[in-house]
């Protein structure tokens, strides 16, 4: 058994990145994720790594581009408005097929919005906030332990597929303290990075990192190659937690912090004789479509709960193909639903028959 520490979510992310071999971090301060930068500023010099407080989110993501292209394990982190600024770089990194990890500890919007937890960046993350046809793997942890584990995994997925991986948390997860059990040694995959710009050493042809292909035939082929990679990831990298779904009267779908609340609702409902199931997508992309299809005809209805106006619910509806009614309950502006509120919603739905 490894070291067990009480940590803030944001610190667990930073520690996990270091344990995963990340030695380059570029960021810009924004609430509620700045503890990641504090942690990196303190620790990177001790392990011979690089911490740069960039002049902007735009610069930070482009430093990530350069470092990833140079073959390093690299990370940046931010929160919603900052992630919007990074969209240009996200698109370029995706086009150039560079492996990197980006953390979004979501706050509420639109605009400067507020600093409290929200999940309003789901569309931006999974449908493509930047230009062009690209995908990022989007991981949605729901505990500090999972923030640690998924951050390590994010670096492996990024390297394996040469893709950008986003850890999507919210202000609750970033700020809360929980015990984290660290492994003695992380499982780190080592991949060939002979494509990286490390200097030719006069021993090979030059390497080029680019996202521009002026010839339309070449660019279409490049896009087809990206799409083929995305299909492989959809096949192999789906992660999902299901709970109590087999004989559920109703199945609730939720990710991140909301899923924690729903787990308590399940216990409350049990006392009243209502069987509530939970499908918690851990990868928001690739989306666990097959899991929803597997349980599509089990409950009377589905209820999707999110900290937004209804974003993941669209993917739930697509997955279920109209086999069952899908209801939605959302809170915005940094407000969280109470357990009772969700239970009342469940009862109201079931009353409809």
């Amino acid at each position, binding site marked *: 058994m490894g070291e067990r520490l009480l940590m803030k979510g944001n610190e667990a992310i930073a520690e996990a990145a270091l344990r995963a071999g990340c030695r380059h971090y570029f960021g810009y301060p924004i609430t509620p994720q700045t503890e990641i930068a504090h942690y990196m500023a303190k620790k990177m010099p001790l392990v011979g790594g690089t911490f740069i407080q960039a002049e902007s989110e735009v610069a930070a993501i482009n*430093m990530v581009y350069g470092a990833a292209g*140079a073959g390093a394990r690299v990370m940046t982190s931010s929160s919603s408005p900052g992630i919007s600024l990074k969209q240009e770089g996200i698109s370029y990194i995706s086009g150039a097929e560079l492996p990197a990890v980006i953390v979004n500890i979501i706050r509420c919007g639109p605009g400067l919005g507020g600093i409290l937890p929200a999940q309003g960046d789901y569309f931006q993350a999974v449908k493509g906030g930047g230009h062009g046809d690209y995908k990022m793997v989007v991981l949605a942890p729901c505990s500090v332990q999972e923030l640690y584990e998924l951050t390590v995994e994010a670096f492996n997925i990024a390297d394996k597929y040469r893709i950008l991986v986003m850890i999507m948390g919210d202000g609750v997860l970033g700020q809360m303290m929980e015990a984290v059990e660290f492994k003695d040694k992380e499982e780190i995959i080592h991949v060939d990075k002979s494509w990286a*710009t490390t200097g030719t050493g006069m021993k090979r042809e030059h390497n080029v990192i680019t996202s521009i292909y002026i010839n339309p035939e070449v660019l279409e082929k490049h896009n087809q190659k990206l799409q083929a990679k995305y299909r492989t990831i959809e096949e192999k990298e789906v992660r999902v937690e299901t709970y109590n779904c087999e004989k559920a009267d109703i199945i609730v779908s939720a990710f991140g912090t909301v899923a924690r609340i729903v787990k308590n609702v399940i216990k409350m409902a049990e006392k009243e004789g209502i069987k509530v199931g939970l499908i918690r997508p851990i990868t928001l992309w690739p989306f666990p479509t097959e899991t929803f299809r597997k349980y599509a005809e089990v409950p009377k209805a589905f209820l999707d709960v999110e900290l937004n106006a209804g974003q993941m619910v669209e993917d739930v509806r697509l997955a279920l193909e109209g086999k069952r009614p899908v209801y939605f309950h959302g809170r915005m502006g940094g407000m969280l639903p109470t357990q009772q509120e969700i239970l009342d919603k469940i009862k109201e739905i079931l009353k409809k028959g």
Partner: protein
Amino acid sequence: MATVFKRPHALKDVSLHYCPGCTHGIVHRLIAEVIDELDIEGKTIGVSPVGCAYNNYEYFNCDMQQAAHGRAPAVATGIKRVHPDKVVFTYQGDGDLAAIGTAEIVHAATRGEKITTVFINNAIYGMTSGQMAPTTLINQVTTTSPYGRKPELHGFPIKVCELLSTLEGAVYVERVSVHDIKNIMNAKKAIKKAFQVQMANKGFSIVEVLSTCPTNWGLSPVEALKWLQDNMVSFYPLGNFRGRDLEV
């Protein structure tokens, strides 16, 4: 028989796509000659801009990364921090460096990032067909200043070397031109020194190269060189702004 003139090894044996009379080719060659003379091709990593030189990664034999518009200094920062023992340079035009990428160049310079920037100032946007640049001269006609650049409407041209030389981290700052042989030789000396400054870990180095754009200036190649000499050199004085006596 002795070879007295040959293509530098650091420059690939391919034809360049630039317009006839454009001075990008000259500057590419100077950079490649410097890379050869310093024997650093195997450890040099270049960053291509957005603009006419967007694909100069196809021309240099060293490793290259293509950057988003204006972001080359940030990309170069990422590369250099991963490989501090390598030589990293950016190649940027006036729109790229002095408009959309102003924040990136200023902060790479003030951090004293150990990279070298070759800054092509031809007072116009070439790639997108002749729009006003931050360095477009007063009264200069462009497609977006069709009645000439007017200070009351468009503000004044940015003098990049003067601006950056106020920053402690920018240890070598020099402006050169390529309108005649003598100046081309000086330009090469400055580019070489800028690379040497980086290799000696002194800090950020930049060489601004006054250049032509015959196509968008609407002049013949020879007229363009004369226009540069007559109009640009008086506004953008040539010479060293910082680091003249820096030991390398």
